[in-house]
Every structure is written in structure tokens, then in C-alpha cells.
């Protein structure tokens, strides 16, 4: 019948999000350099089919194909007047795939520049940029908003606030960390504690990490421990890459097999992660193995 409240569900059990979208789109024929978010309008069937594959793999939720769908990110493709149609279509087709059983997370990624004083964009302008996209996701019927792959805590907090002002629904916030010596920091030099504090303060309900650079599965386990520590009462999300990519015969190769991910998932869960998913290099096969591991 109707979906359970996401926070209530997470308090009771560990849930599984989906895996990568970009690499699936390329596998479906998206050419490099073409706007993947544009496919929500002109290849809706392909995007919906990818959502369905993740749901068939046992994912509890799907994430809309709107990672780079702010006005600023779409401007790189000359699509900056298409913010609302792209995000709304993305939410609607994800909902079609998910039906009533699975949750739909509305994806919001970095806007592609820097806030003042490093860049030229003010917090107010950025708030408007995020609001425009999130309003469209909302209109398309998402259950929660996920603000992901962020580096700058101020940028992420702005997106979280925009989401919270607009809709009374859970907001997830994740950062991309990399190793800096023996620490884990975002590109902007923020550690997990400071990054999570910023988004919790802005009202995020679920916090954690996704993607990252140069992290292997052991690193993700260490990161998970730090996140659980820093999140306090909030549930933690972790969406790991399938290991750190290597090049082989001119091809990019993510080393972690579905079995590797399945083993890692148990370690993430034991470290206290409540919402687990995949990022770069993960496929429906990875997610299916992860689902089995969680049973």
C-alpha cells in the first residue's frame, strides 16, 4: 500500500539504495560529453529501465537522474532553461518505476562552481539555484531529497536548507572524501566531523558519504566508523565506489567485484551504517549481491 516513513524504516532496519547511474547510461548508449540528465526528456524509457534494473536487484529506493541538473550545471550543455522539465520528468519516471513500493530520492549535486569568497556566487544566489531544481523534483513527487558528492559544507548546507524550506520530507546529505595523509578530507579540506556538523545544523536528517577519490573498500570501512561517530543521533548513509579505478588496456576498470562489495556491505553495516548504496562502478549486479549480503 503506501510507503513507510523513511526515517521510521531506517530506525528499524538497514536499507539499500541504488548504484551508479552515469555508467549505466553510457552502457545504454549515452555518448561522452552529452548531457545525461537530458535523457530524462528524450530517452525516458532508458532511464526508467535502469531504475527498474536496480529495483529488480532488490534496492529499497531509486535516485533520480538529476545529479547535474541545476541551472549552472545544465548551462554547460546550453540547457539552463530546462531545469524544471528535466528534474520533474526525472522524478516522474523514477516514480513510475518505483510505484508505491519503493522510495524515490531526488538527486541534487554540486552546482559546479565556488561560493564567495573563493568564487563569485553568493549564498542567496546559490539558494535560488538549488530551490529551482528541488521545486521541480518535488513537483514530480520525490519522497526525499539527497544532496550528494559535495565538497564544500557551506554549499551542501545551502542545498539542505533549500530542500527543508520547500518540503517537509527527509533530506539526505553526503560528501565526497579523499585521503589526505592519514586523514579523510573533502577537496575543500573539511573532515567528516565538520562536514556532517554543517549539514546537521542545516536540518539534514540522514548524513554520510558517497563516491570519493582513491579510496579502497578498507578505507570506506574506516570512513564509515568516522561518520557514525560524527553523526550523533542521525542515521548514516554510505555509497561506496566499486573500489578505486585502475586502467587496463585503455579501459577504466573498477576492481571490486559484486562479491567484494557484498563482503564490504556487511562490514559497513557492522560499523553502524543504516543506509547503504553504491556509487561509481557499481551495477545492478553489485547491488543484487549487496542485497543478498544484507539478508
Amino acid at each position: 500500500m503506501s510507503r513507510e516513513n523513511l526515517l521510521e524504516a531506517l530506525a528499524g532496519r538497514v536499507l539499500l539504495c541504488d548504484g551508479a547511474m552515469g555508467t549505466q547510461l553510457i552502457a545504454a548508449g549515452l555518448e561522452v560529453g552529452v548531457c545525461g540528465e537530458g535523457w530524462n526528456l528524450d530517452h525516458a524509457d532508458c532511464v526508467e529501465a535502469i531504475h527498474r534494473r536496480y529495483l529488480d536487484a532488490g534496492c529499497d529506493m531509486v535516485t533520480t537522474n538529476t545529479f547535474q541538473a541545476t541551472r549552472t550545471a545544465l548551462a554547460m550543455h546550453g540547457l539552463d532553461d530546462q531545469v524544471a522539465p528535466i528534474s520533474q520528468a526525472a522524478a516522474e519516471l523514477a516514480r513510475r518505476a518505483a510505484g508505491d513500493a519503493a522510495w524515490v530520492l531526488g538527486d541534487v549535486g554540486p552546482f559546479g562552481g565556488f561560493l564567495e569568497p573563493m568564487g563569485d556566487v553568493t549564498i542567496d544566489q546559490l539558494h535560488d539555484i538549488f530551490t529551482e531544481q528541488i521545486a521541480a523534483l518535488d513537483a514530480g513527487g520525490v519522497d526525499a531529497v539527497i544532496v550528494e558528492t559535495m565538497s564544500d559544507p557551506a554549499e551542501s548546507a545551502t542545498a539542505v536548507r533549500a530542500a527543508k524550506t520547500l518540503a517537509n520530507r527527509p533530506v539526505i546529505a553526503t560528501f565526497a572524501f579523499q585521503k589526505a595523509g592519514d586523514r579523510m578530507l573533502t577537496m575543500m579540506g573539511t573532515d567528516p566531523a565538520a562536514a556532517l556538523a554543517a549539514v546537521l545544523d542545516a536540518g539534514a536528517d540522514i548524513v554520510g558519504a558517497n563516491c570519493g577519490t582513491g579510496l579502497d573498500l578498507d578505507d570506506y570501512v574506516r570512513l564509515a566508523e568516522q561518520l557514525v561517530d560524527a553523526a550523533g543521533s542521525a542515521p548514516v548513509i554510505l555509497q561506496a565506489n566499486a573500489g578505486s579505478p585502475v586502467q587496463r588496456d585503455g579501459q577504466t576498470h573498477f576492481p571490486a567485484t559484486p562479491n567484494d562489495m557484498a563482503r564490504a556491505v556487511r562490514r559497513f553495516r557492522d560499523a553502524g551504517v543504516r543506509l547503504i548504496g553504491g556509487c561509481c562502478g557499481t551495477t545492478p549486479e553489485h547491488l543484487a549481491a549487496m542485497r543478498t549480503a544484507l539478508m
Partner: protein
Amino acid sequence: MSELEQLTEAIRKGDRKQAGQLTETLLDAETDLEQVLGAMVTAMDDIGAKFQRNEIFVPEMLIAARAMSEAMNLLEPRLIAAGIKPKYTAVIGTVQGDLHDIGKNLVAMMWKGAGFKVVDLGTNVTPAKFVEAAREHTPHVIGLSALLTTTMPAMKSIITALREAGLNGSKVVIGGAPITQSYADEIGADAYASDAGSAVDVVRQLVAA
């Protein structure tokens, strides 16, 4: 502290206003232009080294670079008028299929800070455009940037195109999140830079060689 040292310090701290004022003062006092440039390069070298040691991060680096370009905007016309040209030229761009420019912009700023003339080709740059720019500017180095694992193979096509066009005078340096030294070796790049700070050291070694 001399005014030159103050300028170095202002850029290091990222104080844009003060960097501009000090540069004006120095130029009004007819200070040797090379010395003013030297003060700026010292600051950016320091920033690059701290960045490599994880002592500062992207925000501090960007703020310093903004202060530097404020000073550079004042200095540059005087350098041109005096016939002082940058010793080295670099061409940089994000490879075809890739629209990410943050890393590429950081490297461009650091190279400018090191006193290079930098020609920025932007993002999604085709092999043909790199060849054209290499002919036009005869750069000492060409920098290739890629963030996506799916676009890094384009680096190989660019190097092949440059070599086929007989443009062997420019050294190629590559970088970006998925790039490694072994990938640089595999595709025949002259060097790999792991971050914007080391990108300066790497090209200095290349042009000195």
C-alpha cells in the same frame, strides 16, 4: 617587512584589496618589475607547497589565486610595455567529453602564479583544437585534465594527434582524479601531476630539462 615582502604576505593570506594596493604602491615607486613579479611567484610557490603537504586546501588556494590575479592585472600591462615576456608558455584544457573545470582552473592559476603565460582552451577540447593551439602558441608544456574515468582515454588520442602532427617540442603533462603515473607512462605522456601544487614543480622540471 619591505613592501615586496608585504605583497608576498598579502597574496599568501589571500587579501585581495591589500595585494592590489601594495602592487600600486610598488609600481608608483618605480620598483623593478621583475622583483614585483618575483614577490608574487614566491607567494604562490609557498601556497603550492602547503597545498601538497595538506596544510591548506582548495578554498585557501583559490583565495590566494584571486589576490594574485588582482595584483597581476595591475602588473601585466607594465610588463608588456617594458617588453618583459613570460619565459615559458603553457596550453591547458579539459579533454573532449569532459566538462569539469575546477581542477584545470586551479592548475592554470598556479601556473600563472609561477610566471607562465597560460593559454586556457576551456573544457571539452578536441585533439584537433590542442594541435591547433600547439601550432599557434608553440607552448613549452601542454596540460591535459580529466575528471571522469570515461573521458581519460581521450588523453591518449590527444598525445597521438600531437605526435602525428610532428609537434614534439611541447611536453605533455596530465592530471585529474582518476589519473595515475602508470597511466601517464602507458599513454606516453611526459609527466603526471598529482595535484595543482605539484603541477608547478613538474612543469618547472620539464622546462629545465
